[in-house]
């Protein structure tokens, strides 16, 4: 086993021993540690609270030097999730320079971060969208200007996610 596989195995064991409340994450197939699936329960007191969203995490071969990619396979209408399901939050951005100057390096991926930290960031993203650099502009506009309409769309996603 190489470094990335060892580390992923270690993280998998840790997460099974001490799971994060509201989240279940594991390799889809134990033979391939580089593809995980995660089920995330919408945080309470948010329009996502009735939903359970499935996402896939794809790890690069040089993990943890580079971050994984995360993509929701359940439909999720959210300012920080691209319409195709890819998640755009700072912890998933590679370390080093930020060409746009939006994020300070401390919020970004560093090899000391982990799957657990990513999932916690996703939970906080669901509760508090960041509309400064949205991945889904329509969702960001609606969230800012017409909260009831946003909530309606979010609840629709939550309902669909359980089917």
């Amino acid at each position, binding site marked *: 086993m*190489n470094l990335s596989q*060892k580390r992923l195995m270690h993280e998998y064991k840790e997460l099974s021993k001490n799971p994060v409340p509201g989240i279940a994450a594991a390799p889809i197939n134990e033979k391939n540690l580089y593809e995980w699936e995660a089920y995330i329960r919408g945080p309470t007191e948010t329009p996502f609270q009735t939903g359970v969203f499935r996402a896939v995490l794809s790890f690069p071969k040089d993990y943890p030097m580079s971050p994984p990619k995360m993509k929701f396979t359940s439909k999720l209408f959210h300012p920080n999730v691209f319409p195709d399901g890819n998640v755009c939050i700072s912890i998933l951005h590679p370390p080093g*320079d930020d060409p746009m100057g939006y994020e300070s390096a401390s919020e970004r991926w560093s*090899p*000391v*971060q982990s799957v657990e930290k990513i999932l916690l960031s996703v939970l906080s993203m669901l509760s508090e969208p960041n509309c400064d650099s949205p991945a889904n502009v329509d969702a960001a506009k609606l969230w800012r200007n017409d909260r009831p309409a946003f909530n309606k769309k979010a609840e629709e996603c939550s309902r669909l996610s359980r089917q």
Partner: protein
Amino acid sequence: MDRDSESEYEEEVEEEFEEESGEEMMVDPSPPPFVVKDSGLDNEHFTFINVADIKTEIDNLLSEYEQMFQIPSDDVLRILLQFQWKRDTVQNKWFDSPERILFESGCTPANPSTPPTYPYECPICYCSYEQNDIVLLNCGHGFCKYCFTAHLKQLLKKGQTNPQIRCPQEQCTIKLPSSLIKSFNEPYASQYNTIVVTDYIGQRKNLRWCPGANCPWVIRRDGLLRNVACLCGTKFCFECGGPPHMPVSCELRRKWLERIQADTENLDWITANTKQCPKCRNPIEKNEGCNHMTCRACRHEFCWICLGDWKTHGSSTGGYYSCNRPKNVDLEKKQMSAKARIEYFTHYLDRYVSHQKSHEYAEKQKKNILEKQENYMRHFNCGRKVVEFLADSVDLLVDCRNALMNSYILGFYLAPGVKKDLFEMQQQQLEASTERLSELTEKKVPDTNRQETLDFIGITSKFLHSMLEGMVDSLLVVRTDL
């Protein structure tokens, strides 16, 4: 968990390093030998420095502050990087509070660290290590050297351009000391040096890399001129890095380009290659750079730009060359009418486009100049030294056309006044002289007049310099009613 494949992992890393170090680094102490050639531009206003000399400049700065502040060179570098190499800021901050500037620059941690106990678990690979396998930073965060190296390598491979590299621990404000980065295998030291040098050059307003591909030269500006002709042959604007465009500023040029892009209808009409002879109405196609036209049908000589009689243009005929000033527009008026505004704009656009086209022709002439030189040598049975004037004349022509093209942008924006009058006088001299030079360069080999061409190279080059140098100050008054 323990780690059984350390050596394997390390090997893999080493191997890739060798590959990378095989490539030439940007820090090359010995740039290729060069020949300084008078490019028709003002290279006495620029100094060409090689990277090794910049490196020395930085080292001198580091040792100066090392002695002044009595702190290690690592700390001096972190401070200089944090405060964009600004001597004033650094010195003021240091004398206000050394503790604070050291903290702000990531030299000292926010909280005193507790020494780790060994064996220590690396927070990246979760393996346990003894002390000599751990890289320990002064913030108390340690990492095994394998992970630490892999992390650094990843940063540099991804094109890190910021020399301030943070401790990998989240929320930690410590920046890695350069001696630590350089203590790892090559190419780290050289690559890190390049990043530092590039940062230094980027922060200095009077320094710039040549934008030419693989060009090793760094250019220092010693005056106010912006047109640089690098020793590698690349010509560019010192301020924006784009093509040279004196006498107009980067900002006005950008404004102009946006404006003419929005106005394609006018542009299409003006860029059409055919006009009618003003006398006999025969269609005339222009396929050379010179604006002195002779109608094939009626032999009438006229100016392509204003369609006026050429007799009123040439200084030899005693006429007054005034094609560069807009007619029928009351320039003194503060506010122009809508119709006058359109005429005013069209006047400058017309001339801009015309010189732009002539500039393209001149570039073509430049490309074919070797062939013309060969023909000349064969025809006049002379040596290579004699035909240098042919290349010099088209080189100068290219620069003049470019300057004239851009001068019409400046003319468009300049508010009426003494400065504009002076500028238009210089522009007019340059334009008249350039047209003559252009005519001379377009003559067939047997008709070429070497002495006259040499004379015009001298005169035109003087006019070019005086127009460019006359317009470098930033106090130009710009029209606001356009």
